[in-house]
């Protein structure tokens, strides 16, 4: 029973990180219909930027987060503006999606290649823990301060996003663009700017998630591909178009993964996300929170 509770608790922690990356993927998908296969590598770069800030610039932790977030915000905007707009302009709209997705695959390779250029990344690194403190005991469950801070930051970010999307004009504009881009344009919402901003926010989110991952797991230039897979699983569980769904999906995935590891075997944890993806897509493709599966009107 203790092991069960412990599994659930640590599942919530890792799950909230998956949720953040999943949010990044879904924000881009909702605003631009592009699936960002490079999302995990954006997180990876965020982690390394954070590492750079802490180790070389010797900045305190909050600045590391800020630097990673701002840096990748800029990169996201640059990518949408410099690359994706050209891709969209070059092909007829019915077949543009696959080109865009491959462009994001290209982005993932570029990010990985760029990080590998620095010899510093050859060794496996870890970000230092936020601050050293004895673990907290919540009944039978042992919680590291680290984990609590991770969950805290995730919750704070989700709250900020909620306020942003529900109550600010910009956020509402983004939601309008994702619901129906043509209609939004007709009302006067600058959809081009909205797309840029969506990419920027999404990459900043992924960067922060990356720093959080880096503080918990060993960092290598390759961890992006594992992260993106789990983020996809989380987003799919929640329904790829639902932001609260990502959060629920992420936490569910984290918990399920740990439970599978506990009750089945540790090697099965790798299989869990794939099974989840396939089962959900076959049985209930709209996920837990998606609406009825509707055919888009031509």
């Amino acid at each position, binding site marked *: 029973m203790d092991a069960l509770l412990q599994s659930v608790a640590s599942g919530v922690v890792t799950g909230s990180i998956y949720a953040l990356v999943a949010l990044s993927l879904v924000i881009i*998908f909702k605003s631009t219909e592009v*699936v960002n296969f490079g999302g995990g590598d954006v997180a990876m770069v965020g982690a390394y930027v954070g590492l750079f800030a802490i180790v070389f610039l010797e900045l305190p932790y909050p600045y590391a987060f800020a630097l990673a977030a701002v840096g990748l915000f800029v990169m996201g905007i640059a990518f949408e503006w410099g*690359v994706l707009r*050209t*891709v969209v302009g*070059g*092909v007829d709209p*019915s*077949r*543009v*999606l*696959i*080109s*865009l*997705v*491959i*462009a994001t*695959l*290209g*982005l*993932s*390779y*570029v*990010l*990985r*290649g*760029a990080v*590998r*250029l620095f010899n510093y990344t050859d060794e496996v690194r870890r970000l230092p823990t936020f601050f050293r403190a004895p673990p907290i005991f919540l009944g039978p469950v042992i919680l590291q301060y680290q984990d609590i801070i991770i969950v805290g930051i995730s919750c704070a970010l989700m709250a900020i996003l909620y306020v942003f999307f529900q109550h600010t004009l910009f956020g509402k504009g983004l939601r309008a663009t994702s619901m129906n881009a043509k209609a939004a344009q007709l009302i006067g919402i600058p959809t081009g700017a909205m797309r840029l901003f969506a990419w920027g926010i999404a990459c900043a989110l992924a960067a922060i998630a990356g720093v959080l991952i880096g503080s918990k797991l060993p960092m290598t230039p390759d961890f992006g*591909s594992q992260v993106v*897979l789990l983020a*996809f*699983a989380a987003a*799919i569980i929640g329904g*790829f178009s639902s932001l609260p769904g990502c959060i629920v999906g992420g936490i569910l995935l984290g918990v399920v993964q740990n439970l599978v590891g506990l009750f089945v075997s540790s*090697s099965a944890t*790798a*299989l869990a*996300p*794939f*099974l989840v*993806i*396939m089962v959900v*897509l*076959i049985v209930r*493709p709209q996920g837990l929170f998606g609406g009825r599966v509707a055919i888009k009107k*031509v």
Partner: protein
Amino acid sequence: MVGSLSLRIVVGSALALALSLVIAPVAPEYYLHLANNLIIFAVLALGLDLLMGWAGQFALAHPAFFAIGCYGTALLNLKLGVPFVIAMPVSAVLAGLLGLLVGIPATRMRNIYLSLATFAFAESMRWVLNSWDSLTGGPNGIRISPFNLFGYGIINDIDAFPVIVLLFLMILAATIYLTTSRFSREMLAIRESEHVALASGVDVTQVKLKVFAISAVYAGLAGGMFALTHSFTNPDQFGFATSIVVLSMIVVGGMGSIAGVLIGVVIIGLLPEVLRGALKSIQIWQELIYGVILIAAMMFAPKGVWGVLRELWLKTSRTTGDLGKPAGQFEQDGANP
């Protein structure tokens, strides 16, 4: 069948085969090794192109069928002593059946969800290969013993080359037949719009299932060819990286056309060799360069190199049509309007 396969093609194939028999003993073995690998990827790419370029299904399950073809052929030979000429087709058919199985839920899925579900399937297959130690040797892989072809042992790339060429020519002929048949038009109709295709009398579900199965058979055949030319394999060969390589081959070369796919195979297939031949320090840039090529291809040549070549040809062709404009501007090619 005779209608689509002109005499030119048959004679050309016979010549190519004869050429390969002559070249094999004299060419450096490394080049033959490269050629074999390129041909294997060409088969993979042609199969994926049928699914993605012609039928428009963004499915990433290819590596799973590749694995079945390879492991199937190797294990049938290793454990049951089945000769290559039987083992390879059997594994390819098995792959095709699995492709059909995957196709059943896949026909209901749209673009992005389809790609994610098939990706998850391919990774699950890799997990099975990694975990089923007793059968597949797990992460350590299996050693493939050399095959015997009608009593003639295939021990190295030199022996294998003519066989690989022969298999490739047969597969190429089948591809040409497929892409000029009524089936190809049904695939194109589905790619452009499933609803319109359905309204026009195309049995969308049937065609999709067939394409999934056929594409899987291609991958299975490629797997068998891989088993013939390699003495070792392990699950890492059949992961997402392979998917991306094959995908970039067909995208950079040009989807929906055999020539485009083959161009893409050569470009992407020889890229590591070119980079290796350049400065040693370039090696660290490999991934970066690869990503830049993908992005650049999507930005400037979304229809692939073949698309660019065709546009050039259309622009420079001097024949005029009825309206006084170069005929090329109104030409609708079946694969890439």
